[in-house]
């Protein structure tokens, strides 16, 4: 992709959605959110339930109107346009397939509503059925399909009118684990093949990380951080983002010196090193929270000033690896994760004293 100054697929400008009469008495579902989603991007809105991600999706689709602010689709204002006048389609959480129609009729519905010529409808239906590998079930009624198949039909139905933006509202949440994994790959493939901008809503952080080009983490109607999955995972800006995505150790420490986006910190537990620094900087010398991912820690044999140490309190085994819980002299508990590389690899047991090294450049200072 070129470094583009092109118009965003979706440009959300200081948009709020308040249910009820006003800010004081109503519920603020979305609080002055600004966000630009690029063309041909797989963009994910990630957050716990009630964070406003579905509200944002419904504002883009046109099911709800924003209380304040504006939304632009490729530079055009969407204000006041009903859903049927927006070149945007939705894949609903519970699919919402029309039960009185066959698979093919479901898929052609949108095209019929757009007065597409019949010959073109049948070729497009065939094309999208192929895209989701459902050609053989075109004449089935939708209630004769499995969950995964319904999911594919819902996708095909939303893709058939060739929308400029496809909205996906937790479409995988009703599927079982294995099917979900399959569909994650499938969705990513579809996005690549169609070149349509996907906006995907989920509360599953793993789903967000595996599929997205960029992720926006939301809470309480606010967007806390926007970035690609690596940025979100490795450099969480806020404590909530760090906590919400994956396992993380949050230790207390102090900033000794700052240098742009980095700072030298000293953990209360002893270790001193560089850590990433988010934009909203904490003042020098204050106590800050510092995040370290469990897999960035490893055991070392000898004690030293560059290491942490403590006693192992708990070990849990989860197949592909082990989690060790270590209590340090400061009273803080730290979790260390090791890959399972075969027997005899790590001979620690509960109660052992252990020394821990932190990978270079893996600490991140968090804003609260």
């Amino acid at each position, binding site marked *: 992709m070129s470094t583009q100054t092109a118009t965003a697929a979706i440009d959300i400008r200081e948009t709020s959605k308040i249910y009820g009469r006003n800010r004081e008495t109503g519920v603020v579902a979305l609080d002055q959110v600004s966000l630009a989603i690029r063309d041909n991007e797989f963009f994910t809105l990630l957050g716990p339930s009630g964070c406003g991600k579905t509200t944002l999706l419904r504002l883009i689709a046109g099911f709800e109107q924003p209380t304040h602010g504006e939304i632009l689709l490729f530079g055009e204002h969407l204000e006041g346009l009903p859903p049927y006048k927006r070149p945007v389609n939705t894949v609903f959480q519970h699919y919402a397939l*029309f039960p*009185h129609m066959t698979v093919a009729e479901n898929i052609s519905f949108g095209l019929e509503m*757009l007065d597409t010529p019949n010959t073109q409808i049948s070729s497009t239906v065939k094309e999208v059925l192929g895209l989701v590998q459902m050609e053989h079930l075109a004449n089935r009624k939708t209630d004769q399909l499995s969950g995964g198949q319904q999911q594919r039909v819902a996708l095909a139905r939303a893709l058939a009118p060739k929308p400029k933006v496809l909205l996906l509202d937790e479409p995988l949440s009703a599927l079982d684990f294995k099917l979900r994994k399959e569909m994650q790959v499938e969705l990513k493939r579809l996005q690549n093949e169609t070149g349509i901008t996907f906006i995907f809503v989920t509360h599953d952080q793993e789903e967000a990380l595996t599929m997205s080009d960029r992720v926006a983490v939301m809470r309480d109607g606010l967007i806390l951080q926007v970035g690609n999955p690596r940025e979100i995972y490795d450099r969480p800006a806020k404590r909530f983002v760090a906590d919400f995505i994956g396992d993380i150790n949050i230790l207390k420490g102090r900033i000794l010196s700052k240098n742009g986006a980095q700072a030298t910190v000293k953990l209360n537990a002893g270790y001193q090193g560089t850590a990433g620094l988010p934009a909203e900087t904490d003042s020098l010398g204050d106590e800050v929270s510092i995040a370290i991912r469990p897999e960035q820690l490893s055991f070392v044999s000898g004690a030293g000033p560059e290491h942490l140490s403590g006693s192992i309190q708990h070990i849990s085994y989860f197949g592909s690896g082990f989690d060790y819980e270590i209590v340090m002299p400061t009273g803080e508990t730290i979790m260390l994760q090791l890959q399972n590389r075969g027997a005899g690899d790590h001979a620690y047991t509960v109660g052992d004293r252990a020394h821990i090294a932190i990978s270079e450049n893996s600490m991140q200072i968090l804003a609260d």
Partner: protein
Amino acid sequence: MSDQPSANIQPSSSVVAEEKRLRNTRLGLLAPGILTIFCIGIMPLSIVLVYSFLEPGDFGGVSWVLSFDAYVQLLFEEDIFDETLSFTTDYLQIFLRSVGLGLFTTIACLLVGFPTAYFIATQPPARRNAWLFLITIPFWTNLLIRTYAMLLILRDQGIINLALIEIGLIDRAIPILYTDFAVCLGLVYAYLPFMVLPIYASLEKLDFRLVEASYDLYATRFKVLKRIIIPLAKPGIAAGCILVLIPSLGAFITPALLGGGKSLMIGNLIELQFGQARNWPFGSAIALVLMVLVMLSLMTYLRYGARKGAPAHG
């Protein structure tokens, strides 16, 4: 069904005994229902069937002579003098008028009832029951009383005419009472709840996320109604139409009072045969013909509906 764990240990004879006992229990429990259906459904109908093939008694009742006169009479007129038969459409016209008025009533009920049912179904759940309660209020009063009330409203000195004269829209009272319009109005009023309730029942089950999905797929409000809501509410619409059409075909209080005996309907004709005309076989024959016609059209509808793959109503 009766997969008792004891079946594995006990010899099969006791299983047979057990099943027999269960069957008897079932029969015993069903007996009151079966008896009721027999006594108030099948038996009277059989009497009507038998009577329709007899000759009328002199002072009502029947005389036990086998005769097909009642059926012949429906289509043919007997000359008083030379006893020759000639084709007559007198009764056919009454049938047609009844069907016409019935269909008109059904359509009017549908046009008023569907929006009403839709309105109730889209209210917040807590308020729906209150609305349904209001729909059922007319049932608290006897139909005869309600029809007399309609009569008072529609007559020349009734509030409609008085009000229209008062505003100056008309000089003289326009006759509303004793017209087909009055009969239809009365029938719509009497049977509207039977249209609203089944349609409400199917709209209430309707998943409004489907409506949202069709909006999303470029369907305008009208298209959503036509392609999504009406097809999915079809079982309720069909049930409502049947529930309104059948009783309005056989209605006799409403046409008698509001039609003033001018627009005779089948119901009045039947009532007449058992009353003043003292021709019980003829009355029975009309009733049976009406029943067969209704059954035939229902069966046609069901077959048509089944072929279209519409969900069975139940």
